């Protein structure tokens, strides 16, 4: 699935990274606990979250993710947008809630597949 398709499915706005919407991603995860993302996630390219602070972007960066989706219309701070741009991350924001957003993506074929290293 492309990031552009995610944007369509989630009726999302692009906050930054417009130029990367054609990039393909193969899995995603949803969490508000960055600790859990760091511990349990492997090779997920997309992070859906309701948490808004710089460490969300840092976590995605450390995990080599390519896209962050903020649910419930949450908006990242300018600082976070700068950090995201520095590491070529796409940021989307969707009005949907976490459960719905994850469900829609899963239903359309974007799977999870998290496991311990």
């Amino acid at each position: 699935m492309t990031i552009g398709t995610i944007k369509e499915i989630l009726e999302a706005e692009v906050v930054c990274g417009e130029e990367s919407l054609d990039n393909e991603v193969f899995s995603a995860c949803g969490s508000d606990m960055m600790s859990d993302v760091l511990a349990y996630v492997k090779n997920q390219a997309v992070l859906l979250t309701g948490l808004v602070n710089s460490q969300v972007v840092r976590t995605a960066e450390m995990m080599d993710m390519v896209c962050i989706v903020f649910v419930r219309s949450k908006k990242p701070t300018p600082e976070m947008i700068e950090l995201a741009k520095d590491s070529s991350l796409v940021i989307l924001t969707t009005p949907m809630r976490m459960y719905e957003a994850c469900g829609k993506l899963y239903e359309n074929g974007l799977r999870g597949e998290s496991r311990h290293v």
Partner: protein
Amino acid sequence: MNESLTFHFDVDGTDFTSAGQASANVKRSLRQLGLAPDIIRQVSIAMYEGEINMVIHAGGGEADVTVFEDKIEIVLKDHGPGIKDIDLAMQEGYSTATDTVRSLGFGAGMGLPNMKRYTDEMHIETEVGKGTTIKMYVNLTD
């Protein structure tokens, strides 16, 4: 590469927002060196967890990373409260993090176990009231 490459960072313990800067810097430098993505990710995640720990548990500290021919060494040194019981701290789910830290997305008690999992070697030296030094190694050869 005969001479080892070193990086030094002061980790600000008062600013949660800027935490992770050192790890992000190291990640970028390792990329420029052309190291394998898996190795870079191991180093980044282990160092980032350690850096976050220094900020949320120890009031900041110093990070030193050295790239040797056969391994990468990460040394995280702080002058925080120290760790009373290392075995306990190493258990998955054990955390003394405050609710504030949890509301920021951390404090699941997975950091130290994660650091161990992502590195080939990890040593913790700690003294209550004095501080903690964590050394981690990621091998570059099998």
